[in-house]
């Protein structure tokens, strides 16, 4: 059976479900890559209305970054057995997520007040489409965090492989949509400078 020992058995270095989540993140990246490149192409074609970005988007960005930190420390608490910080930081993450959506909504309203409506000019349409699709992905993340909250408050506390995997996947997705928004806001900001 010498050949067996020579064969490195490399199955399941990473849990298949976690890997599948990363792969789906790649497809979401392509969705937004397509839209932002369409933005660049369309902007270069002219007839492009410039407008200042509402400062509310800055506040929402800070909120979202903060929520990633609270989720991270909730996970640390989960691993370390600090049940209180596990539970309440998770709850705080959820509330920050809701606040983010609210601030985005206020941002859109501020844009409308400026006269930048959905159909006014492609420059505004793109902003609504990008931030709107992103908000839809945040809603998905909120659903995942909500399930995590249910687990935290209803199930008895234990650090099992299954619970750990679930939490890690929630975390991966939440950080992903967070980074995605940072990319979008930096992209939009840079485009407006150019």
């Amino acid at each position: 059976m010498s050949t067996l020992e020579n064969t490195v058995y490399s199955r399941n270095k990473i849990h298949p479900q976690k890997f599948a989540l990363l792969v789906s993140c790649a497809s979401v990246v392509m969705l937004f890559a397509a839209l932002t490149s369409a933005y660049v192409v369309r902007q270069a074609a002219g007839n492009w209305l410039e407008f200042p970005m509402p400062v509310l988007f800055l506040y929402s960005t800070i909120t979202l970054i903060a929520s990633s930190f609270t989720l991270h420390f909730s996970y640390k608490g989960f691993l370390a057995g600090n049940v209180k910080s596990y539970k309440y930081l998770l709850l705080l993450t959820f509330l920050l997520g809701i606040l983010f959506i609210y601030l985005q909504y206020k941002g859109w309203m501020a844009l409308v007040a400026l006269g930048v409506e959905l159909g006014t000019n492609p420059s505004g349409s793109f902003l609504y489409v990008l931030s709107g699709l992103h908000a839809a992905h945040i809603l998905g993340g909120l659903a995942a965090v909500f399930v995590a909250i249910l687990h935290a408050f209803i199930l008895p506390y234990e650090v099992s492989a299954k619970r750990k995997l679930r939490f890690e996947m929630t975390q991966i997705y939440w950080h992903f949509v967070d980074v995605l928004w940072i990319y979008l806001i930096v992209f939009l900001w840079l485009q407006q400078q150019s």
Partner: protein
Amino acid sequence: MANVLTAAPHSEEDVLIEQMGYDDHFHEHHDGDKFQSNFITTYIFSQDHKMIAKQFLITGMFWGVIGGLMSLVFRLQLGFPEESMAWLKPVLGKWIEINAETGMGALSPDFYYALVTMHGTILVFFVLTAGLSGTFSNLLIPLQLGARDMASPLLNMMSYWFFFLAGLIMFISLFLNTGPFSGGWTAYPPLSALPQASTGSGAGMTLWLISLVFFVVSVLLGGINYITTVLNLRTKGMNMWRMPLTIWAFFVTAILGLLSFPVLASAFFLVMCDRGLGTSFFLNEIFIGGQALDHVGGSPVLYQHLFWFLGHPEVYIIILPAMGIVSEVLAVHSRKPVFGYKAMVFSILAIGFLSFIVWAHHMFMSGVNPFISNFFVVFTLIIAVPSAVKVFNWIATLFGGNIRFTAASLFGIGFVSMFISGGLTGIFLGNSAIDIQMHDTYFVVAHFHIVMGVAAFFGMFAGVYHWFPKMYGRFMNETLGKLHFWGTMVGAYLIFWPMHYIGMAGVPRRYYRFDTFQSFSQFDDMNKFITIAAIVTFGFQLILIINFFYSIWYGKKVTEKNPWGATTLEWTTEVDPGHGNWAGKLPVVHRWAYDYAKDGQEFISQITPLKEGESETH
């Protein structure tokens, strides 16, 4: 050997798996041997990859017949514009317009365009993407890699049902009062983005968009699963370089789909905004019915960029699985290792990579900068290199082989022929200068039908004949299979070869009739000929359908596990593999997938350990 066995071993391969196999304790789990399924979870909402594969195949066949029949109707119009089509009135209803004086029935031009659009959409997405990649990725990835099932059987099931839903919505759109969408399968704006642009642009386009969004979801769910399974669930010893070429092809196909379909989804999303929310992403200043629309400053070319960023990888999503299947089938039936295995893998990877940077060759005449076109010409022509490597390797695999001319291998050889014929015309069309004359003519129609339509179908047929024994435990009838092959092979060339001449003379595609232009009347007879050839060739496909369904219940039973004498893992399972695929342990792999005619043995299964002093190199 203190292992618990579920069945007494009765073949050499069973003994090998029992002695050297990998015990994943599958049968002790509650979803292992104790797994129970009832009628609904077995045949309808099944999570078993083998059943899902059959569901994809049969749904694909259904759509193949519908899409094929549609092409016959519009071919009748093109070949025999003077003949009455009143006899189709009972089926097509108001779409056949009867002239009150002469009693002549003519196909309505609106419906002609709807038929062309639906034929393209159905064949490209439902038959050659879902029906081909969906079927064989599902069937073969777990079986050839030694996995119990897909990484997520639930997502896999959802992948099929999203596809089913997409099909259902598209099917409903066929019965709309205003007809299905009629602006071409590429759905360019403004026909797709303005509900009032044509009869099919209203409700028909809405359903088309919803259907295809569901389809994108189906492809993504499937693709995520395929990629994860290939990278994570290979059995012990199955490293990437021991994978059969089928798996390599499905793997790269899934990556292409995963990266390109979201781009299509984004284009569709923007189209929806233009249709319903008053944005102007793709709509420029437009007058319609004497009225100026509010839309300002959109770019229809932007849609074409987004669409073809999917559209070009899409043709490789269609052809790569066929290439993988053909590589495997040719190696098995010529009893030789596939020639240049690594070159084949690198060609697949190269084609996959290049497919993302050639999209604008569909847009040479759309007003893109001619300077930028040069880059796309160069990249497009470079695709000829890995394609030629593959063709050379298939021929070298066949050369000197002990070829068994089964229906499967005949279709494999036919695939190579079609791929050469269609690929050569691709070199013509890839030149932006020649494209000025050729674009939107029947030359293009001939090119893509041969290279990705017929060729992909040949790959699919080769796969169906080859793996039917694995799917249903019975053989398909070989005589009927060969009859089907020769009818299709000759018929396909008779349909598409003349189209090259028509196209070179500049006859445009997508025209309802040509009698406005006297110069095209010289092709009337050729058009008649093509139509007749199409009807006859379609008739030969009925042989396949009869053979397929007859053989499911009455075909010759498979009595041995490995009827083709193949090396790959799917032939080490029971004839009718149950839940979890292998009854006992998982097989462990010791060698690559193509040890044919090695050391005087006809074939050596992948689960056979290397002998003392035997080298794995090939």
